Every structure is written in C-alpha cells, then in structure tokens.
C-alpha cells in the first residue's frame, strides 16, 4: 500500500500555494475582508440537488456546510461590508473526474454591486490567479444569456420550451437519456451535455439570466419571462463559478426553503432544517449585494492543465 502518499505532484501543490497567495493579494488590494465562518452548523442547505454530510453531536446533529453562504450573509446583514472566504466544503456522493466530496471554495460578496460588476471582477480574479502561475496571456471571455446559449446550441427557447420539446431537442442532438426528468432536469442535462459541451476550450464563457425556476438564492427580475439574476462562469465546458444578485427578502427566502424541502420530500430525500438565523438576518435588513462562489480545485486544474481533480488534491476522497 502506498496510498499514504499525496495524489497531487509537488508541482500541483506549489501551483495551489501560488494561486492562493495571488487571490489573497487580489482581495487585500481591493479592500475585501477575509473572514472565517463555521463548517458545522445547526442548519443545512435545503437545496433540492445537494446533500449535506451529517455529524452527530449529542442528541442534535450538525451539518457540514456545502457552501459558506448562509453565515457570510449573516455577517453582511451585521454590516461587515465586502467579505471573502476560502474554505473546504462538503457534498455527499459528488465524486468523479471533476468532483471530490470535499473541495475548496472561494466565496465573496460585494455590497452595492449587481451581477454585471461582479462578473467583471470574477474575470479579473481569474486573470490574477493565471498571472500568479506565470501565465501572462489575457484570458478570452465570451458573455451571453442563458436563452442565447440555448438558442445558439439547440435553436430552442429555454424559457418557453415544454418538456417534450426539450426532450426532442436532446434526441435530435444524439443525447440518450435514461430516467424520467422534470423540466429543470432537462434544462440541466441539455446545458451540460449539449450547450456547455460546445464552449471553446481555452476561453471563459459567462452565462447569465437563468430561468426563474433555477434562481437558488438569486433575486428574480420581473419581466417576460421573469429571469433569475444569476450567472455562471465556465472554463471550456467546465462550470467554475456561480453568482447571484442576492435575494434580500426574508419572506421569499422562507418560501423557497419550504418549497425546496417539499420537493426533497417528494424525491425521497431527507428534509433539512432551514437556517432560521439567516431568515432573521434578512428580516433585520440585508444590504443590496452580489456574491459568487468559485471552485478553486477546478480553477487550478485549468490553470495548471490537469485532467482530473485528484491531480490537484493532496489527498483526494479515496486517500483522505
């Protein structure tokens, strides 16, 4: 047995250290405060598609965070101003070439900003990380709405198409799906297998204006159709960052927690204790702000030209 040894090469470990130093310098210069919040919480995410690890602690379980977003929003409500955090987060069963159940996330919030400003900063941050690894060439960036991306790849109106039309577009593309999917399930599979799969390998592609049904913690901009003020950044076909113009309405947030938990119940997933402290913080007054989470292991994979997430982790899941 030699699985005591790290999976990442010394070169990958050095690259990670340089990337982290570059990111911290970036935020120091921008006057964004580094913070630390608990990994173990009384509450958990109710996100329908994300499962939290449970840790027993006496009679009351605690949950490992899947993202530091809830306590960071409590800091924002308490008047912290701009903040960032680099931490390990945990998601059950997410293991594969691009997934490790424990991974590194960079999360940051900008008070008074909207998604447009934050997207520009995400791009500068990625450029800074690239520079820190000695890659001087400017990164090419493409921007389009969710609707445009679907229209270009599949000639489909992502906001109006029925499940039958989404299914037919997938079949026409040569996608063989096994299992019954709802509308959002079809949008997810088409986005990753048909739309993002065609994104140019060495560019960043930024998609915004997500369907309202996929708002997560983003505000919904009324209109026809209403869209979520949410964006994602892809490097080639790989999802790298997910950002929101943050929902500030405590009532709507509570309704989303309840709806998520109902949906989890329908799918046979455990219903999770919603974060009442987050709801109280929003009710107390939450600043207008935009926030984003960026997967640091995947960023390092891209910058260092690594194929598998294991190559950039000292001790991936199997060796942890």
């Amino acid at each position, binding site marked *: 047995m030699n699985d005591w040894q790290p999976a990442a090469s010394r070169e990958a470990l050095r690259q990670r250290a340089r990337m982290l130093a570059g990111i911290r310098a970036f935020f120091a210069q921008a006057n964004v405060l580094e913070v630390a919040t608990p990994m173990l919480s009384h509450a958990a995410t109710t996100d329908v*598609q*994300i499962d939290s690890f449970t840790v027993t602690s006496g009679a009351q379980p605690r949950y490992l965070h899947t993202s530091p977003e809830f306590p960071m929003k409590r800091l924002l409500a308490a008047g912290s101003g701009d903040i960032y955090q680099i931490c390990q987060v945990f998601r059950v069963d997410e293991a*594969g070439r691009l997934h490790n159940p424990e991974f590194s996330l960079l999360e940051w919030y900008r008070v008074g900003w909207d998604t447009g400003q934050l997207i520009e900063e995400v791009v500068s941050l990625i450029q800074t990380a690239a520079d820190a690894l000695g890659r001087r060439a400017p990164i090419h960036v493409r921007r389009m709405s969710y609707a445009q991306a679907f229209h270009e790849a599949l000639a489909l109106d992502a906001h109006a198409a029925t499940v039958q039309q989404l299914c037919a577009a997938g079949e026409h593309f040569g996608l063989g799906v096994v299992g019954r999917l709802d509308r959002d399930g079809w949008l997810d599979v088409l986005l*990753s297998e048909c739309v993002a799969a065609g994104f140019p390998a060495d560019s960043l592609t930024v998609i915004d204006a997500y369907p309202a049904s996929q708002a997560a913690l983003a505000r919904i901009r009324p209109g026809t159709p209403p869209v979520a003020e949410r964006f994602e950044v892809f490097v080639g076909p790989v*999802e790298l960052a997910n950002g929101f113009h943050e929902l500030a309405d405590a009532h709507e947030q509570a309704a989303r927690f309840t709806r998520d938990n109902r949906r989890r119940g329908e799918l046979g997933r455990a219903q999770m204790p919603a974060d009442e402290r987050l709801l109280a913080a929003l009710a107390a007054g939450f600043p207008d702000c935009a926030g984003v989470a960026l*997967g640091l292991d995947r960023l390092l994979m891209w910058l260092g030209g690594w194929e598998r997430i294991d190559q950039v982790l000292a001790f991936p899941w199997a060796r942890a």
Partner: protein
Amino acid sequence: MATYSTSEFKNGLKIMLDGDPYNIVENEFVKPGKGQAFNRVKIRNLKSGRVIDKTFKSGESVEAADVVDVDMQYLYTDGEFWHFMVPDTFEQYAAGEAALADAKPWLKEQDVCIVTLWNGQPLSVTPPNFVELKIVETDPGIRGDTATGGTKPATLETGAVVKVPLFIEEGEVLKVDTRTGEYVSRVK
C-alpha cells in the same frame, strides 16, 4: 432480479438496456453545482459489439445482465457452430459465428477459452492471451539472421497470418499474443 444504481457504475459492469446486455466501457459523474446529477456513460452492446453513449439520471437503477464468464475447452467446429465443454462438468455449449468474431483466428482444439454466457447462451468467446500455433506456410528462413529486425508473413494452422522474424521456418511452433495478434517467440 439484481439491479445496479448509477452510484455503483464502474467499468466492466454488465447491465441490461432495452432488452440487450451491455458492458460499461466508461463512466463519468456529471453534476451542475445547483442542478441534477447524471452519469455520462459509454456502453458496449455485448451482442453486436457496438458502443453507444447514454446519459443516466443519477439514482436510476438498471437491471444487471445475467452474464457469467466460464472457462471452457474448445472441442471442434461443424462449420456452423463452435463446440465448447466445461472441463469439470463435461457440460457442452455451441457458439454461433457472431460470438466467435474476435476469437476465430486463434482457436485450437483443446485450448481453454473464456466463454461469456448470457442467459445460458454463449455471447462471446475470448481465446487465451497466449496460444501456441504451428506455421503451415512462410518463405524459407534466412539462416543466421537473428538481428536485422526484418519481418515476413507466416500463415498458422488456424489460418491466422502473423508477422515473424526472417529466420523463422515453416513447421515451427510460435507463441502468439492473441490480444495484439503479434508474434512473441519460438516454442522449442
């Protein structure tokens, strides 16, 4: 009936899909951060050999294909079927031409092959990794030439043609790697 969940998917797993047995060739977990998880898989139809791409919704269960690999001795062919026997039980199986596609050039009577059975029917035959076969035809050998690296074709007793070094003679027995179809050595 045994089933596999997508979380158990791995290369080599044999599953049923639309009534046919398949072998998983590649499996990749795919999940948008906030979205539905999938397994992107390449699977080989064990009857036709054709490889196709499928996207399984994570958490789906599929029926396991009732496929087993059994060591059997090759007995003879009657031209239509190739007959095999399980050495321990003397049970005999007849495999059709489709199951023999890759194995035919390497089959020698008495050799022990792996016969893959699906519902008790031979689906495919895998010859031993190395077989020893006699040369029935090749150009005369060049004496003393053991180092120049040149090759020539040699026809073996099963009809297979392999490239051999120039010094090899008709009537000699060769060891051949059936996975690559390459000459390994002379057998004394």
